[in-house]
């Protein structure tokens, strides 16, 4: 729990505050950067905005004491996935300009649909809002460290882990096959 120093007269006292302001700031940053992904016109700017979302999410994970996941987030998402996105954006550099040549077929209708989905979700969400309060449980001392996660991954979750590895292998082979010019 965070503490803040309060001075009344000549008495100073450390008072616990029931929330983490850093977490709120990072959450707002993540949301604003997520808005940037859909509001920027140029794909490179959208991609950089997505990078900001990922980094603020990694900060949130650090604040929630999930260090291993934060590092994985930066390495895998910001380091690997986003680089592939950047490569593809560079590859299509001229084609992005052509988007203005064609008139959108159904964008306004889809926006209405998205707005309807949003309102429905907010309505169903608002009914549940009271059950979302409550203090966090006391965390185990090694929460979010590499060791307990690795132990759970290789002992309790061995089969899902192997299945995911197989999925990844198939994905790599499929991507290579689709990237070839002449098909076998």
């Amino acid at each position: 729990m965070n503490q803040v120093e309060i001075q009344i007269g000549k008495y100073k006292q450390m008072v616990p505050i029931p929330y983490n302001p850093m977490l709120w700031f990072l959450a707002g940053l993540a949301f604003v950067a997520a808005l940037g992904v859909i509001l920027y016109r140029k794909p490179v700017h959208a991609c950089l905005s997505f990078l900001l979302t990922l980094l603020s999410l990694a900060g949130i994970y650090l604040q929630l004491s999930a260090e291993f996941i934060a590092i994985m987030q930066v390495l895998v998402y910001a380091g690997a996935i986003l680089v592939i996105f950047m490569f593809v954006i560079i590859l299509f550099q001229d084609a992005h300009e052509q988007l203005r040549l064609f008139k959108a077929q159904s964008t306004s209708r889809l926006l209405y649909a998205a707005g309807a989905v949003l309102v429905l979700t907010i309505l169903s969400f608002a009914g549940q809002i009271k059950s979302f309060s409550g203090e966090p449980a006391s965390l185990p001392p090694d929460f979010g460290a590499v060791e307990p996660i690795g132990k759970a991954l290789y002992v309790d979750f061995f089969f899902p882990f192997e299945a995911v590895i197989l999925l990844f292998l198939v994905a790599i082979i499929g991507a290579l096959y689709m990237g070839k010019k002449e098909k076998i």
Partner: protein
Amino acid sequence: MDLFVMIVTSFLMFAVGLIGVLAKRNTIILFLCVELMLNSANLLFVTFAWQWGNQIGLLWVFFVLIVAAAEAAVGLAIIINLFRARQVVDVDQFNLLRG
């Protein structure tokens, strides 16, 4: 309070991703919005793992990360093939399967 803010953030990020997938026309931005939705689910996993002091939630985040990486590799390969076939990135122009 922190829990509530995290849930609302995750929900808003998912909504932004959904609106992007439904309304944007650039294929790559569309794909970025899918990643955004995956990330909002990840945030919820970590938040509840922290709330209940349970490590298993972090494990699922790990799995989601791997699946997102696989999806990015295959999806971008598909996008490149579509681009080779049509020379555009506008999803409205991809009407090869139109009946």
